[in-house]
């Protein structure tokens, strides 16, 4: 794939005719999400006075970052035509692995953090390899991993600590320096920025550049569009899938390290259900559930919409009984705006 058709200037075919800049922009998958985000933002600026307070921007960005760090790799995976239902508990697994290894073996915290990275990458590699070897739908493969990890998280924690939460490791060597890396907080003016916000932005930029500007990015679109056709033109389909799953593993490790060093202990039952939030963010951000179409920036905007809605309801001080309903309505509206823009652009 990745070959751009050079059109002879003389015989312009309307199928490959250059489109105007505005239409090209409107056809980007994330534009609908961006408009949706603006609508949600304006809405809460009007109804929630606390939303207008600049100091609170840090809270909203942090809320978006904890979703976005995982939504971006999940979006890439969806562009490549696959799912990962284990992404939510994989974050908990990473945090538990580092904490339990450090505590049980009295390891230096940094050594345990690196071992946890290897474990997270291995979980990703396991998903990718299983998928490549068996040819089963990724929905089934990662559903299996989801249950395996959920059980291991609980069982292993119980075996190691005798409790269902990891033990506090904040008195161990290396904890403080690791905290400075994974759970720092800095102030820009009156806005407090937490570590995941920066990691989230970096991951988004890297993923967007890889997806749009590199050969590997083209391979991802090709594999997601039609894996057999991609293989026929020489795309290493298995490698692409493996790398994508390991990227999810890497980001799960990063998110897990933040949880561990922000909260000192990890509850073994946490993370269940988050996989859907990541997928929702990716879909709101313009990813198709069928693969081959989507964007990294869109997924991040999806995460932002989710966080703005979630926190906006709090900022507005609405009756919390209806919280989930508000959330659902806002998400549907954002997705509809998204869809409408895409239709308009396609019609042109």
């Amino acid at each position, binding site marked *: 794939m990745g070959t751009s058709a050079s059109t002879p200037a003389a015989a312009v075919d309307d199928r490959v005719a250059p489109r105007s800049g505005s239409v090209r922009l409107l056809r980007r998958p994330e534009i609908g999400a961006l408009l949706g985000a603006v609508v949600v933002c304006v809405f809460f600026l009007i109804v*929630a006075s*606390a939303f207008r*307070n600049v100091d*609170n921007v*840090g*809270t*909203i960005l*942090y*809320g978006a970052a*904890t979703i976005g760090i995982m939504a971006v790799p999940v979006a890439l995976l969806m562009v490549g035509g696959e799912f990962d239902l284990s992404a939510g508990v994989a974050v908990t697994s990473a945090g538990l692995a580092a904490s339990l290894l*450090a*505590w*049980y*073996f*009295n*390891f*230096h*915290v*940094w*050594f345990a953090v690196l071992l946890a990275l290897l474990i997270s990458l291995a979980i990703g590699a396991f998903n990718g390899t299983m998928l490549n070897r068996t040819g089963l739908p990724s929905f089934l493969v990662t559903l299996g991993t989801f249950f395996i990890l959920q059980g291991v*998280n*609980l069982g292993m924690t119980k075996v*190691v*600590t*005798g*409790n*269902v*939460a990891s*033990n*506090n*490791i904040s*008195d*161990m*060597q*290396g904890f403080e320096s690791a905290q400075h890396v994974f759970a720092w907080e800095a102030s820009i003016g009156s806005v*407090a920025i*937490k570590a995941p916000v920066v990691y989230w932005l970096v991951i988004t930029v890297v993923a967007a550049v890889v997806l749009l500007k590199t050969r590997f990015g083209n391979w991802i679109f090709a594999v997601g569009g039609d894996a057999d056709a991609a293989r026929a033109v020489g795309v290493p389909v298995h490698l692409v899938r493996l790398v994508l799953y390991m990227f999810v593993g890497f980001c799960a490790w990063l998110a897990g390290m*933040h*949880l561990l060093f*922000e*909260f*000192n*202990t990890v*509850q*073994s*039952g*946490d*993370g*269940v*259900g*988050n996989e859907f939030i990541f997928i929702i963010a990716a879909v709101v951000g313009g990813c198709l559930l069928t693969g081959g179409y989507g964007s990294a920036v869109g997924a991040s905007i999806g995460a932002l919409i989710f966080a703005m809605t*979630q*926190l906006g309801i*709090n*900022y*507005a*001080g609405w009756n*919390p009984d209806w*919280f*989930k309903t508000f959330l659902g309505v806002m998400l549907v509206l954002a997705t509809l705006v998204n869809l409408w823009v895409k239709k308009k652009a396609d019609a042109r």
Partner: protein
Amino acid sequence: MSSRTRRATAVVATTVLVAALAACSSTGGRKAVEDAERARNAGKATTPKMTIALVTHSGPGDTFWDIVRKGAQDAAAKDNVDLQYTADPDGAKQANLVQQAIDKKVDGIALTLAKPDAMQGVVKKAVAAKIPVVALNGGLDRWKAMGVTSYFGQDEKIAGQQAGDRMLKEGAKHPICVIHEQGNVGLEDRCAGVKQRIPATQLLYVDGKSPASMQTAITSKLQQDKAIDYVLTLGGPIATVAVQSKASAASTAKIVTFDTSQDLINAIKAGTVQWAVDQQPYLQGYLAVDQLWLLKTNGNIVGGGQPVLTGPAFIDKSNVAAVEKFAASGRR
């Protein structure tokens, strides 16, 4: 495997091993806890082995229920009981687990009645099959009518009222009550109890399965309403998350909670959390199993047909030291 990859593998393996040996922490960790655990070992009954099923509505990986289970296990070890623990937060599935215990003809069933209507039928079946049943933690107003032998737990509404009374005495005017499990009757009762004492109490629902999302939700609430002076959470781990939220929102609100965890005991000691309402979950599990054993071996009924209240008691800075030494093994 070529000799080059074999050599590479050997190098990697050696590096990991050397790093593992060199990369040890000399403070904290497992070593500190193991000695304390070795110290405890109670006497043991010589009565014939009996089988008891403990069926709760706990979700997986819940700190509170782990303490209940530990109490039940300790009682089982002491009473020569084979304890079979199962749990499911879904009412219908929990009832099904009780049915399985009846099918296995266990000698006694201890269960929670958080969703009494779903459990009613199967409890009656157990009683009809002459299997003694005791209830713990939930169902204070329903257990007797179902033919359950005894009840161990606290009255959630009374516990909420007492928490409200204490907050009122300390000068609370605008508290929030953080519910981490939407639709849980016991949690709603606690907040309702608080609200009876302090009508200005606001409810905040958060996702108990995601600490980051809980943190931002509580932070945003504190930022939105600067008048909030007390944050009441309904579980130990949630209170420690609220401590982070308070820092993020630069709020001066005081943090208080229901139920404890190891970390929470440390937080009370450090003064970041003011106090916790303690319903002694260990006691609920322990007494439930012990009651079934007593009934079988000596015909006793603890509490004489009245509910046995295990709480509410308060843990604060004045008595935290007495609790702390038991918290390390996850029993408080």
